[in-house]
């Protein structure tokens, strides 16, 4: 299968400075060598606890922040990370971002019409009439009415605002959209409207999604492939159904157990300390070691490599597999 998106060895570190002119002594290791690929028209879901590098990864891809290392092959572009700013503009129109908070991501002083067509105006070469027609079209596409184009964001509810965000993302005909917690700030009864809309748009337009959410059940539901991140690394990746049924990494196993509230009686869950190692003094061995029920001396030597091919089931663990039956 040909890949629409291929990311290799993505790294981002933030230097920690003590003073204005001081040299960086330490670094926060935010993303540490992340590689993945997504076939066209499919969804890769990323799960992991806060601070594990999910959002940083997404922002690096769109070059909202610049990576320290890595290669990002996107469609015919060999490496998006090495493009000069001028060329990046053209590539960026094919990549869009849907933010978590529809209250802060829409400019309250702009008409909806101007919000959804802003990406087009930025690129120029559209007349006013074309833009107006396009705005009406986009709004209809996401289930709003063309008459809404002359309103302001505050006149809409959370779910409708998220639809406006989606319309804006669609305006430049992107082939890749990053959805960063698109439903977390919405009411439970509204979430499914947005999830269904995203699925329908993907089927219709063949868009590739990178889907980030902290709600595990939602990510499982939305994704074709899933990546589990821990301390800036992918520890397990594979088709979401397979990952759900036969998780191999102890962290994934722990996460899946938490889907079931009855699992709180399970000693694995009960005794989990939940302590994440420091991202500044990054340990040499496996970062999950302090919490791992299967840890052995070998795990302290080096971080286990992510083994497996392509989009097949891969796991970064020296002792992967089913947990022992008690």
């Amino acid at each position, binding site marked *: 299968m040909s890949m629409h998106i291929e990311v290799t060895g993505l790294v981002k570190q933030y230097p920690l400075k003590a003073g204005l002119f001081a040299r960086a002594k330490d670094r926060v290791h935010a993303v540490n060598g992340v590689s993945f690929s997504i076939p066209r028209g499919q969804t890769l879901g990323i799960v992991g*606890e*806060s601070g594990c590098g999910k959002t940083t990864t997404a922002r690096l891809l769109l070059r909202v922040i610049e990576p320290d290392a890595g290669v990002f092959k996107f469609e015919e572009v060999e490496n998006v990370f090495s493009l000069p700013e001028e060329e990046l503009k053209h590539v960026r129109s094919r990549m869009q971002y849907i933010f978590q908070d529809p209250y802060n991501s829409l400019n309250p002083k702009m008409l909806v019409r101007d919000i959804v067509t802003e990406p087009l105006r930025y690129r120029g070469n559209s007349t006013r009439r074309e833009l107006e027609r396009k705005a009406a079209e986009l709004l209809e596409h996401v289930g709003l009415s063309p008459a809404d184009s002359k309103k302001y964001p505050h006149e809409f*509810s*959370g*779910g*409708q605002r998220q639809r406006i965000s989606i319309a804006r993302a669609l305006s430049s005909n992107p082939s890749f959209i990053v959805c960063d917690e698109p439903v977390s700030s919405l*009411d*439970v*009864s*509204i*979430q*499914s*409207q947005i*999830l*269904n809309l995203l*699925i329908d748009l993907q089927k219709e337009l063949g868009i590739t999604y990178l889907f980030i959410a*902290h709600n*595990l*059940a*939602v990510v*499982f*539901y*939305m994704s074709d492939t899933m990546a589990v991140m821990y301390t800036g690394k992918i520890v397990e990746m594979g088709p*979401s*159904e397979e990952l*759900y049924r036969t998780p191999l990494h102890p962290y994934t196993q*722990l*996460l*899946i*157990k*938490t*889907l*079931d*509230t*009855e*699992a*709180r*009686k399970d000693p694995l*869950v*009960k005794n*989990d*300390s*939940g*302590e*994440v190692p420091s991202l500044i003094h990054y340990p040499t061995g496996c970062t999950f070691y302090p919490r791992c029920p299967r840890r052995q001396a070998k795990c302290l030597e080096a971080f286990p490599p992510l083994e497996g091919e392509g989009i097949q089931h891969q796991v970064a663990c020296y002792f992967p597999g089913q947990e022992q039956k008690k």
Partner: protein
Amino acid sequence: MNPSILQIENLTTEFQTVTHRTPAVEGLNLTLRENEILGVAGESGCGKSVTILSVLRLLPPNGRIHRKSKILYQGKDLTQLAEKEMNSLRGKDLSIVFQEPMGSFNPLFPVGKQIVEVIRTHEPEVPVKQALDRATELFRQVRIPHPELRIQDYPFQFSGGMLQRALIALALACSPRILFADEPTTALDASTQIGILDLLLERKEATGMSIFFVSHDLSLLEGISDRICVLYAGRMVEACTAKELHTHPLHPYTQDLLEAVPRKGTFKKEKRLYSIQGKVPDPQNRPTGCKYHPRCTKAFDRCRKEEPELFGKESHVVRCWLYVDAH
């Protein structure tokens, strides 16, 4: 069935704005029993948090409890108590765990000191040293590693999950009879969330307290509650045991909510999620009749005109005209 410890009768709480009077909760009747976890479910704006704030009398200045409302605790009507009496109950008999642990502690004082403050406020005869020992013991009970060291740490030195544990320790400091938990795990990661739930259950068993647990997540409530009450637009629409709510939900709203959320082990190619149409009604402009009728697929004429009361037997009540015959 355990005897009741808190009875909310006909609670109506309104907020006065310049031009409007907005009802947040309307005519709510609820009973919390001893040593029980009552799950209160609902979306934003349905009145979950306002109910807790009304009971604890922590409403903002423009919030007002209707004078016909009663909140009975140990034979006393909390709405009638003087502020001083209320102060002696808050933090002692009735305590609360908020959603955001970072915002619940004072960042300028060590966590242990803040727990000592609560203990000494309610029991001034306890010496500081002894109060500190008690705080350390509480830290141990909520399973914070190295309690004797962590007790001296400031809030920023804790991770989110650990600080939420510390907040629970603070809430438990004076052995409350009722713990109000307002979305205590929503801000936490999945793996730490379950640990906090387990901790609450264990403390409930150990101390015999009751927990009033508010959350928007029905599946989470199913796992820990004895009974669940579903709120919509400021009123109760359904209440029954946690198990029954998931096996036989009666109200169309409850049924729709359960269908609209991806459950574990469902994938998009297998099943399309049910989409509830429309949005939660604006509290200033709630529809006539049943408040859910504009979004309900089973609504008929009567639903638009008259608001149903709670029908059904005591163990399972539902506010829907479909069940008028069962009454």
